[in-house]
């Protein structure tokens, strides 16, 4: 457990993604099976021990420490597990610390009753860092910013395999993932997951930018404003995976019992609404879909108000046949033939856009804003379905962003290499006529879109135009205008201005523009489409 405790501590204090990857990869290489598999599961919040609750920990501590001192300490630290790890009385003797797998085995065997005698024995075998790791692992609340994607990338880095392979083999395996380590670290055959409802890595697109393609070679589709999903049914079992490969089946239960055959389908998850027209009726904007995302429990009301469906654009596997090696045009035919067999209530087909040539397509794209969709996808007609992002096969051609001029209100220091720079900004627009006493209301934040040279200059501006400080945040005198680019804007009850932008970023710094000429809130609200 000491090595895992040291890793967790290092991860807590590390902000750089590359450094996190390096730390996890190093641990995975150096740690034997099955400890590293359990650790991997713990880091990605993949372990749960129902016998250990936060209240269990508090009760154990109250028996050992004066309750008043416990409460004062807990209030100061702000975290039960950490407070307990620090306050746990040092034992008289120091038995050998447990390994990760021994810890997992002991925790898994505990009941609500036995935990009260068995958890203290484990606590006594560890130092404060080890106790912290133990309690975080036991309560399944690591919360140290390690997504499953990050863990997979680290795994790939550790054993010099591709992350697509890791994605493909990881799913369907349960901790401690020994077949996965046997394959990657010891050169054994890859785990056989062909008949399991596992995630198959997505084929991804490059931005088109200045490239012009021949429509004889490429087919065009709308780029829908939902989330990319993969619906998998294997051996009668159905799972729904997100773009990152996370299992989100529980969030969309209405999609789990409706596939009449084993298949792996690629498509866009949307909710019903009046925008984003499709053959079987329209879809709502992303804002409506957001109501459904990230929920563990889905109410009947949610299901009724925001019914989800999948707009399909590819088929990877159908009834035992792996189609990924076949060209897109052939897969498309299979998909079109499949549609009548799928319930129209939950599926429709992403239509291919008919255009004579690239110029006409350019015009069609220019009108895309009204459809509340993101732009176009271009797919090479003869390309197989290849995991990851391979140049020349799929392109995304996003519509031009919306632009607005907003005034810098607050600036915050960044992290990592940017920790000495004010690099995170909050912008505002006028709630009326600035010459008639209108005020700025915050409309969004942006952290990107400027060069290092510009950052230095903005940083200097922030430091010399500060009027207030709130911890790491500085309030500026509202004298600098930025042109912000964003994909869309929506009503929001959470913001005082009543609007929220999607993907705002700095487009240009308007050193020349006086702040009273920045845009008003009304101008931003006029761009709302939902």
């Amino acid at each position, binding site marked *: 457990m000491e090595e895992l405790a040291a890793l967790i501590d290092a991860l*807590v204090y590390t*902000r750089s993604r590359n450094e996190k990857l390096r730390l996890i990869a190093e641990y995975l290489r150096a740690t034997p099976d099955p400890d590293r598999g359990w650790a991997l599961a713990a880091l990605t919040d993949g372990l749960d021990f129902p016998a250990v609750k936060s209240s269990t920990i508090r009760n154990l501590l109250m028996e050992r420490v004066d309750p008043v001192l416990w409460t004062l300490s807990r209030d*100061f630290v702000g975290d039960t597990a*950490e407070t307990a790890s620090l306050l746990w009385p040092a034992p008289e003797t120091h038995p050998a610390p447990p390994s990760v797998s021994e810890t997992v085995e002991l925790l898994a065997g505990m009941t609500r009753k036995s935990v009260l005698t068995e958890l203290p024995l484990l606590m006594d075998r560890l130092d404060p860092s080890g106790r912290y790791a133990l309690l975080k692992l036991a309560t399944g609340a690591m919360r140290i910013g390690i997504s499953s994607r990050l863990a997979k990338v680290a795994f790939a880095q550790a054993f010099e395999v591709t992350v697509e392979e890791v994605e493909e083999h990881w799913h369907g395996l349960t901790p401690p993932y020994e077949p996965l380590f046997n394959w990657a670290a010891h050169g054994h055959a890859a785990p056989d997951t062909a008949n399991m409802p596992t995630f198959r890595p997505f084929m991804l697109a490059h931005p088109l930018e200045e490239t012009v393609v021949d429509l004889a070679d490429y087919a065009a589709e709308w780029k829908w404003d939902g989330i990319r999903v993969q619906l998998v049914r294997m051996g009668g079992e159905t799972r729904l995976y997100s773009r990152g490969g996370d299992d989100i089946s529980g969030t969309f239960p209405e999609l789990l019992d409706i596939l009449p055959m084993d298949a792996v389908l690629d498509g866009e998850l949307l909710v019903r609404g009046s925008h984003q027209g499709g053959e079987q009726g329209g879809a709502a904007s992303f804002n409506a879909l957001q109501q459904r995302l990230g929920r563990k429990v889905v109410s009947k009301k949610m299901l009724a108000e925001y019914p989800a469906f999948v707009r399909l654009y590819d088929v990877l596997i159908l009834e035992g046949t792996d189609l990924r090696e076949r060209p897109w045009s052939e897969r498309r035919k299979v998909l079109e033939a499949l549609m009548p067999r799928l319930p129209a209530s939950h599926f429709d087909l992403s239509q291919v856009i008919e255009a004579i040539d690239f110029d006409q397509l350019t015009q069609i794209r220019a009108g895309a804003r009204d459809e509340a969709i993101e732009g176009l996808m271009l797919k090479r007609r003869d390309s197989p379905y290849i995991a990851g992002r391979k140049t020349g096969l799929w392109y995304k051609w996003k519509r031009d962003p919306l632009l607005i001029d907003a005034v810098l209100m607050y600036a915050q220091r960044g992290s990592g290499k940017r920790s000495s720079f004010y690099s995170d900004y909050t912008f505002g627009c006028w709630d009326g006529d600035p010459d008639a006493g209108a005020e700025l209301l915050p409309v969004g934040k942006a952290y990107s879109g400027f060069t290092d040279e510009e950052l230095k200059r903005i940083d200097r501006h922030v430091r010399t135009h500060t009027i207030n400080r709130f911890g790491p945040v500085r309030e500026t005198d509202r004298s600098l205008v930025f042109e912000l680019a964003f994909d869309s804007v929506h009503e929001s009850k959470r913001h005082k201005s009543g609007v929220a932008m999607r993907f705002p970023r700095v487009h240009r710094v308007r050193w020349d523009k006086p702040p009273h000429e920045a845009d008003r809130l009304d101008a931003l609200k006029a761009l709302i489409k939902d």
Partner: protein
Amino acid sequence: MPPPLSWIRPEPWGIHVVPADAWIDPSRPVDRALVTHGHADHARGGHGQTVATPETLAIMELRYFTREGATPVAYGETIELKGGVSATYIPAGHVLGSAQILLEHAGERVVVTGDYKRRPDPTCPPFEVTPCDVFITEATFGLPLFCHPPIAQEMAKLLDRLAAHPDRCVLVGAYALGKAQRVIAELRAAGHHEPIYLHGALVNLCRLYEEFGVNLGELRLVSEATKDEMRGRVVMCPPGALNDRWSRRLPDPITAMASGWMRVRQRARQKNVELPLIISDHADWGELTRTIEEVSPQETWITHGREEALLRWHQLHQRRARALALVGYEDEDD
């Protein structure tokens, strides 16, 4: 005959020794100040007379230009004040020159600790336990969760990280008076003899420590160094400079901070610290409670810090204690 201990009165801006017309660590200018140590929350300029150890007076002269009315008292020396009060300066183990002040009057003994610690420190003599009727203590780290690890362990952490990143430097934020010099001296004791690079704000105090016989090894100024020569080296700065523009001249610094608060993860994260070093010049919970047991006063007065928990400890151990509401003490950077 006056009631016991009526001659010493805690006021919000300091402790008043009434018959001597003297104040201990007053936060506003007074005619006669008895100063425990040179930290800004205890030592201020502008007093008529300042009684302190020669080291503390030197620090005050450097920082606040206090020169007039400076009255040095060596460790172990007793000075007679007005009104039949005597004051003895006893090592407190906090920083160079830090003293507890033993006040005696009418057969009663009061010890004012200022700030103190019980762990060894190569830059100052250790705290001495002095029996008394009233023990006036700090409680900066007065919660049972505070347990400062042995400093050798923290030095090993620092040197390991340094060795693992030969292309980077480790930038250690440390309070300019006391902590910085102690960290440097402990690095030397741990066998690190490379040059250590200093932020300009640390230079004068390091020099002063050396004048008082604390050997800090080879020190260089960051402002006179090249980026490349600082790779693989320790750089010291005050905590405020850690995330400041100043640090841009350093080779990809690993941000470390030497402070007792680093015991709590969230505290370290709030300060953007990558390498927390739990090093404090204050007593931790174990040191506080052990000291009170060893001194065993009739009553404990608590000047500043987390007094609630220390009061609770007194209650649990059937000891008398009260919290004084003194203003202006306490340092978040320690």
